[in-house]
């Protein structure tokens, strides 16, 4: 397991546990959790809150044949179950955790990159109406292409590392950026840096940033 230094903040984990994040952010959170036991433990704790809420729900009336219908659903499923193998284990040479690999259908070697200048490449993974997920490739020792943040940008390092004014970010680390953030990330020498990035296209989460600042201050 990678030694993750920069963890996801609690508000994103609650959002993930509650299922209210845009899909692109779900992908980055699930990928980060796959690489960090700390994030996994915190996510499980927020899931546990959901469990308490579920257990305290008032009972909704069920359809009369509810149980028998469910049992026949189980029997139907049993027939098709054997046919669908579940492969969640990462190939030994793979760097993409399962949620990412499942989403793009391949590991690093088969990513369809598009050059964006100065040796950097990107691949758009998903483009939703409220957020976009993409992979970014920065050659070792190279500065990240200049870009302005619109809204929230969540960056997860998958390979190599980069440094900016705040710190060093290696595999498994997450950095949250916003439009006020003025930083110049540079990939470390030695290994090309590959990141998974989610951005919300619109300035939708105006209340978010002060709260993230709070989270960091508490740590």
């Amino acid at each position, binding site marked *: *397991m990678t030694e993750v230094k920069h963890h996801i903040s*609690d*508000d994103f984990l*609650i*959002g993930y*546990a*509650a*299922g*209210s*994040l*845009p*899909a692109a*952010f*779900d*992908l980055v959170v*699930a*990928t980060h959790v*796959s690489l960090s*036991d700390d994030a*996994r*433990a*915190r996510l*499980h*704790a*927020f*899931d*546990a*809150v*959901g*469990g*308490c*809420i*579920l257990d*305290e*729900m008032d*009972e*909704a*009336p*069920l359809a009369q044949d*509810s*149980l028998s*219908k*469910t*049992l026949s*659903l*189980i029997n139907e*499923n049993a027939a098709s*179950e054997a046919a669908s193998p579940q492969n*969640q284990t990462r190939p030994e040479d793979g760097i993409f*955790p*399962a*949620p990412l690999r*499942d*989403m793009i259908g391949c590991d690093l070697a088969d990513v369809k990159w598009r050059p964006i200048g100065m040796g950097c490449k990107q691949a758009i993974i998903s483009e939703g109406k409220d957020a976009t997920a993409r992979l970014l490739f920065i050659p070792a020792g190279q500065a990240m292409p200049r870009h302005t943040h619109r809204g929230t940008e969540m960056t997860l390092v998958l390979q190599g590392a980069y440094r900016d004014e705040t710190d060093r970010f290696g595999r498994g680390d997450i950095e949250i950026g916003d439009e006020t953030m003025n930083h110049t990330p540079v990939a470390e020498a030695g290994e090309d840096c590959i990141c998974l990035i989610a951005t919300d296209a619109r300035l*939708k*989460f105006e*209340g*978010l940033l002060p709260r*993230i600042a*709070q989270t960091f201050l508490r740590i």
Partner: protein
Amino acid sequence: MLDLDVHNLTAGNPRDAHCAQGRLESAPADAEPLMSKPLTPPPLKAQSCEWIAEVMAIAQDRDQAAFAALFRHFAPRVKAFLIKSGADEALAEECMQDVMATLWRKAHLFDPARASVATWIFTIARNRKIDLLRKYARPEPEDLPWGPEAEPDQEDVLALQQESRKLAEALKRLSQKQRVLIEKAYFGDLSHGEIATETGLPLGTIKSRIRLALERLRHNMSQATK
């Protein structure tokens, strides 16, 4: 405070009947004799392993009676949760049946050292709800390649179940306003930006219990592969 007396836990309370059947019956070999401790367990512990034996009975024996018992308790709650989350009656019924069928299918993946049964069912219901909304499977964290163990550590199981119970109690003690806010977040009524980080929930202990269970699992598995 952690109390590991498995004998006490399973003795004397009818609600513990299902605890006595599942994996929890294997008390540590060096456990103290039954009579050396008071026989009446505090209710907190009595409830703390609720439903685990039923899930285990499904996983191991495809036990339909155990499933029916889980269904009676959880199906109306899952359905209510889905209705609160915006599903209409028919969709909630259909989706709930699907959730309960998934419970049957995935019973062998349930790990009592990492979640209560209610928590586990919540995650199934939540995922199903999102899949319906988005029309595709939402990314889930990678399964731990080694989990769940055939015999999870009893200490981890009891401690985690106890922490889950404490969390539920803490949730009940929150002010009405805080509680409503948290429920709204979990029903999906709040956008991400509206979710406050400061929930007022004491999550520190349950987080460290889960963290500990993960570490122990990792350690045991690395020992096993040596």
